[in-house]
């Protein structure tokens, strides 16, 4: 059925393009706005905070302390993390000497089918950010085998760790610079804040389905 339909649809489309003599439009170029490194950080923070993201800038060597603080304040009991990653190993090491009031580390090291109930019951998930976009105020999440997709969407709190020197001017720029067309993974997500909606009388409400809170740690060296 699908094949026959496909054939009929294409017949009509191809017949139409054969007859079409409209000239193709010239694609105008739009200038890319560029920001200085300092402006990039400031703009990212301003835009993300406007979307109710909690942003912390920290020296690269202190980020774990910030993570501990935000978790303790929320009395988080379970933190989902990705073992075998830079962040994962750092967390494991830090937690070895951890005080009792830190959440239990839950490693995402099995398929979701084995881990579903746990993933849906953790208090927080922590992931890296592959970069960020200053123009629109968004993080780039690039899930991998070690850092699966659900980490950043299921838990009510998502903590993202971003290196300041991976902030790009615009989405167009990062797509071109990093040659995304040649290497699109299963999933890439841009995230600009916690989940929200204005579906009820245009009134803003947070944490509809995705995380109620997004915390971004910007690591400066």
């Amino acid at each position, binding site marked *: 059925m699908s094949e026959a339909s496909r054939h009929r649809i294409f017949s009509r489309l*191809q017949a139409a393009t054969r007859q079409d003599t409209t000239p193709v439009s010239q694609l105008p170029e739009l200038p890319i706005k560029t920001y200085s490194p300092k402006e990039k950080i400031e703009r990212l923070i301003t835009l993300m905070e406007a979307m109710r993201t909690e942003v912390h800038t920290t020296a690269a060597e202190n980020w774990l302390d910030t993570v501990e603080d935000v978790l303790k304040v929320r009395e988080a009991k379970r933190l989902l993390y990705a073992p075998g990653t830079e962040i994962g190993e750092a967390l494991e090491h830090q937690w070895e000497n951890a005080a009792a009031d830190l959440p239990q580390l839950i490693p995402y090291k099995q398929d*979701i089918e084995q881990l579903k109930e746990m993933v849906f019951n953790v208090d927080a998930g922590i992931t890296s950010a592959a970069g960020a976009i200053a123009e629109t105020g968004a993080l780039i999440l690039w899930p991998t085998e070690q850092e699966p997709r659900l980490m950043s969407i299921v838990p009510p709190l998502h903590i993202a760790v971003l290196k300041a020197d991976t902030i790009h001017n615009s989405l*167009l720029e990062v797509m071109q610079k990093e040659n995304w067309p040649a290497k699109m993974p299963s999933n890439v997500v841009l995230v600009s804040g916690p989940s929200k909606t204005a579906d009820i009388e245009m009134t803003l409400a947070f944490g509809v389905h995705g995380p109620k809170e997004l915390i971004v740690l910007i690591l400066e060296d």
Partner: protein
Amino acid sequence: MTNHHPLDFDKNVSRALNDRQLIKNIKSAMATLVSKRKAIFSDAAETERLRTLGNALKKTALSKLPQLLEQLEEKCNQNGIQVHWAETAAEANQLVLDIMKSHGATLLVKGKSMVSEEMELNAFLQKNGIEALETDLGEFIIQLNNERPAHIIVPAIHKNKDQISKIFHDHIPDAPYTEDVAELTAIARKTLRQKFYQADVGLSGVNFAVAETGTLCLVENEGNGRLCTTVPGVHIALMGLEKVVEKLVDLPPLLRLLIGSATGQLVTTYVNMITSARKQGEKDGPKEVHLIILDNGRSKIYADTRRRETLQCIRCGTCLNHCPVYNRIGGHAYGYIYPGPIGKILNPQIEGLRAAGVLASASSLCNACEEVCPVKIQIPDLIRRIRNESYSKDSTCTIEGHGYKRNLAEVLAWKVWQTINTHPLINAAGLKILNVLGMKIPKIGPLKDWIRYRTTPELAKKSLHELIKQHGVDHE
């Protein structure tokens, strides 16, 4: 073609205009959306450049549509996304059902998809014993109340807080009555979380499908879309065949245009780009991804190179927000799934003129929609085209049902108008006769409707032609 109750537009309009709560809710929401769009597109020159680019990108993609669809299919297949083609809504519905059945699934969680509404998918699945649950908050609300969406972007825009509180309380078991928005949201979150967890199949729409990489791009603020497309083992994506774009780098300007126009944001909370199912070694994501590409009359629209412009639409909803008619009658009055200016041109072309041609009369041709359309569709010209074909039996007409409105009275009236206005002496004589009759235009036909709300227009004692002569103006 979908099955519809015959559209009684007059009745719908009358009902809407008399619903004070509806008018109040709609006007308030539209004012907010209009001002948000204005704020996010505050630089007029930049906005104009962006719109020109958006128009060029969509036109170019459409000019290569079959080629891009082939490329999209090839890339998707390479990446393990299964591509299906549906000529009609019925075929598309069957495809969804077949996929559900092949997995023994009875629960489908849905992200927002206007195409699925066009297909009337939920009703079809329900008839076949499958629960299709809307997870977008606005869609969830109206589904509870057994209604259809009233707007392309904000489906429950016609409801205020009180009405929504009552819907929740009446239809969600154990839900306490509350008018607090945060509490209502929390109830929705709790109720739907269970469903995300349980569902075997998730469904989404597609905002843009990139041919170059086989990537499906979706935008949202709530996160339900990501959950629908990542938690269940199977993901079904539905798209109209016009949604394909050529390159990945086409996305940034189109996203800026779509999101700015739809919600007045620089970017949505999430921009989700899906290029394959779960790969070997990955721990989550659906193991199966299906892309169903729907025609449902679009290839016929495509065949007409002028009407093809209709397919440039990126479903931002801003034309609705700026339309003085939509602002006064809301979305349901239009009877078909796409309301507002885009609905006035799309519905007649999909459903045929007999079924939906009347919608093209519901426009004062004020051009507010054209002024803001992010991809510069010349909607008023297309409305005129639909009006032309409604009256013409000419063989150059291409819309189904053309000539359906043709009637002796109107044809004659315009022929008389033509005769009068191509014969200046007859024109002048006619005015003189009316003056003799007492300076009033006869109260027949259209004048009857006019005087229901306005005083009768009066003819001047002397026409401008006569004053010209009197005042010695050169009149060749």
